[in-house]
């Protein structure tokens, strides 16, 4: 893991909210904070383009939802939209690389794995990436800790900060 480098002032910095999809042709540092949500960092270093999403829910919406912004809250349309936008910029699935983050289950109780929304989000995202033939690089999903992700669109570099709770020890 490389040390976090502050981007030069010319690099745009964009905070990504839940349900959003962003792509960039100019060097951009994206950041997002994830619990059970999942972010796909997708990039093509040969073109210097990249993008990110932040999906909240697995699979597809139960029925038609209104706006495209609403639709991308779900993992399958949210990931497909990210791929489509980078292809529109001239990339192709075979030259794209993906890194995945998030999908945690931060619960004190023993939640069976299939019921964890984070695990379901990861599975849904992977199904779209695999179907598109996109190769997957170093990723970190699951676990029981929220994370902050920083992603440089032009290089594909990612830094992950674990958000370990700093609460005092419980008292009886």
């Amino acid at each position: 893991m490389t040390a976090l480098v502050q981007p030069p002032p010319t690099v745009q910095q964009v905070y990504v909210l839940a349900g959003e999809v962003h792509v960039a042709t100019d060097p951009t540092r994206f950041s997002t904070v994830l619990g059970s949500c999942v972010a796909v960092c997708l990039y093509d270093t040969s073109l210097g383009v990249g993008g990110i999403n932040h999906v909240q829910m697995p699979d597809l919406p139960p029925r038609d939802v209104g706006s495209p912004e609403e639709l991308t809250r779900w993992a399958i349309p949210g990931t497909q939209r990210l791929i489509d936008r980078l292809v529109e910029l001239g990339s192709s699935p075979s030259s794209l690389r993906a890194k995945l983050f998030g999908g945690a289950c931060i619960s004190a109780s023993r939640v069976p794995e299939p019921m964890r929304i984070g695990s379901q989000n990861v599975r849904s995202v992977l199904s779209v990436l695999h179907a598109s033939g996109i190769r997957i690089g170093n990723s970190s999903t699951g676990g029981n800790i929220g994370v902050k992700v920083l992603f440089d669109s032009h290089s594909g570099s990612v830094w992950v900060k674990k958000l370990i709770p700093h609460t005092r020890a419980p008292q009886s």
Partner: protein
Amino acid sequence: MTQQAPLKVLVVDDSPSQREYIKLLLADQGFVLLEAGNGREALQLVRRHHPDVILMDIEMPEMDGFEASSELRTSNLTAGIPIIMVSARSDEQNMENAFLGGCNDYISKPIHKMDMLNKIYSLTGRPLV
């Protein structure tokens, strides 16, 4: 097969209309719904009723969501109760602080019913109905 007790969900928000809206979204789930107008009221209700999950706003008078969550995490009796932060302030620093303060997940306003239900059921280990 034994029937599970209905989930007790505590809704904490200083806006009565927002509490009503959340209760409306959850009305068809068979939950026992409790409500509090700030963090201090929430702490009292948690100690009395021990809810299964808490939906916690961030900005509130008297005691905000961060402070209330931090208090809940300091007692063995309440440290394990899942807290879902619900806030319009889904900016970077607030979300970081929510996780660092011990919350389990967050929902950004405007609230999407399916997102809220997915997180409630996932964190409590109950199947989505």
